[in-house]
């Protein structure tokens, strides 16, 4: 085991990107993720990389487009309102099939909202925040260590699928410190970037575009993208199940809320209620199968989110009417507490008995 360091989620995300071979960062500041660009602004030059604070989020995402098109490992990070500004560029990147990593450290919205944690960008992240019907692969860490591990995976997955990958965190994961180990990992064998625009000497020229004026050609292109999303759904779904074997009631939550739910589950079990947790780690592709299976064993599932109900729609698709799906959420930067979750579960259990 390597040496552990005590580090904030934001800084850990920055260092993990460096360790994953990312050498380009383009972004524009916004709370609560500023430590990511701050960290990378001095770390990237140390490793021969390039950090640019762009004039806007829109400029930054197109710098990402450019570097990705040249075959570089590149990322940007922002928080909710800033991610909204990047949506056009993300759609172009998805359309042009370029690999990159986008970190969203979510804060309360809509609009400028507030700076405290939120999970209200779930729809935007998983259903295609920009236009045109594309998907990102979306990874949702729950701890600082997992943020590190998923950042490394994010770059590999982006290269594997030639697709933007989002790491969807929240303000608490960014601000929190935990001991972290930066594990040495074997280099993955990934497809060579023979599509990149990096000098066409001795080969036919490459073209990177998202413009297809011929509808038949565009349909073929979209079907190709679609097949890619199906491949992701087949190969990349990740989910944690916690104390589900004997569970009579299930909590569904991701990110920070999932760990708060774990504490609630411990309290509930001390009171004789066998609760368990299903925690999607990939929120796109979503672990529908896990929810389909679990809904054959339990009658009630409580979805808890820092929003007024977004992931619940995917949970319902997975459950497909085989269990009751309940909801509890806080919003605007308020965070659900384990006491509140315990109360909600006790209420459901009581209603069942009545």
């Amino acid at each position: 085991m390597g040496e552990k360091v005590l580090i904030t989620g934001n800084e850990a995300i920055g260092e993990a990107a460096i360790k994953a071979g990312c050498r380009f960062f383009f972004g524009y500041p916004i709370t609560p993720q500023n430590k990511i660009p701050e960290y990378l602004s001095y770390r990237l030059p140390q490793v021969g990389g390039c950090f640019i604070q762009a004039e806007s989020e829109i400029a930054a995402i197109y710098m990402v487009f450019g570097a990705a098109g040249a075959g570089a490992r590149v990322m940007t990070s922002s928080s909710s309102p800033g991610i909204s500004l990047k949506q056009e560029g993300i759609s172009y990147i998805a359309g042009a099939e370029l690999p990159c990593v986008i970190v969203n450290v979510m804060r309360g919205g809509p609009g400028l909202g507030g700076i405290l944690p939120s999970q209200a960008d779930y729809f935007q992240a998983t259903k295609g925040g920009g236009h045109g019907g594309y998907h990102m692969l979306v990874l949702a860490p729950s701890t600082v260590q997992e943020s590190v591990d998923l950042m490394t995976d994010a770059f590999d997955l982006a290269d594997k699928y030639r697709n933007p990958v989002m790491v969807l965190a929240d303000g608490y994961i960014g601000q929190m410190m935990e001991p972290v180990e930066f594990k040495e990992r074997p280099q993955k064998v990934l497809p060579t970037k023979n599509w990149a625009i990096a000098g066409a000497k001795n080969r036919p020229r490459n073209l990177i575009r998202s413009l297809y004026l011929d509808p038949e050609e565009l349909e073929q292109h979209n079907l190709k993208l679609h097949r890619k999303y199906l491949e992701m759904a087949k190969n990349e779904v990740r989910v944690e199940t916690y104390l589900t074997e004997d569970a009579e009631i299930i909590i569904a939550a991701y990110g920070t809320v999932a760990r708060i739910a774990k504490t609630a589950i411990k309290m509930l079990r001390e009171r004789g209620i066998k609760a368990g947790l299903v925690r999607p780690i990939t929120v796109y592709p979503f672990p529908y199968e896990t929810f389909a299976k679990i809904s054959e064993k339990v009658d009630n599932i409580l979805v808890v989110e820092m929003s007024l109900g977004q992931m619940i729609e995917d949970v319902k698709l997975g459950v497909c009417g085989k269990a009751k799906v309940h909801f509890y959420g806080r919003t605007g930067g308020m965070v659900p507490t384990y006491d509140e979750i315990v109360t909600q579960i006790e209420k459901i259990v009581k209603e069942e008995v009545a």
Partner: protein
Amino acid sequence: MKSLYENVIVAGFGGQGVLFIGRLLAYAAMKEGRNVTWIPSYGPEMRGGTANCTVVISNEVIGSPVITSPNALIVMNNPSLDTFEPRLKTGGLLIMNSSLITREAKRNDVRVIKVPANKTASELGNDRAANMVMLGAYIAHKKVVTKENILEALKKYLGEKKMALFETNKAALEKGIEIGSL
């Protein structure tokens, strides 16, 4: 390793070093092989407003890093006492800075330790080490980390540039341990 679960909220004015002693505690806990989370309040606070952090230390995987009713509370000023005293767990530990706090604790179901932190630090020649006195009193009671590991954390976080402050901070920590052990 002995089973352990502890959580503490450290609160005071911005500039009193409450986030700093939280970090020292978290680092020391990590050195002792524990799991630990440190989470600051990062709301839109005013300069000179209140600041706080929550530290959770455990042998097991840590669930919630956010704590509703903490086992212990280290409060440096009146507003922090007003905010957090009602939230302290029954039987919990309340360490209050009696140099700045002008009222008595209202709770009678918790253990109250009064520490004249600013006065003590001032007598040791470093006004700003009041936070270390408080931390000393806390570890004297809770024994979740050793003094040695706090000192190692202090060295790390002061860095070369501020190493001149090490001795007075160490003295403040030791005095705090002494006060806390009474």
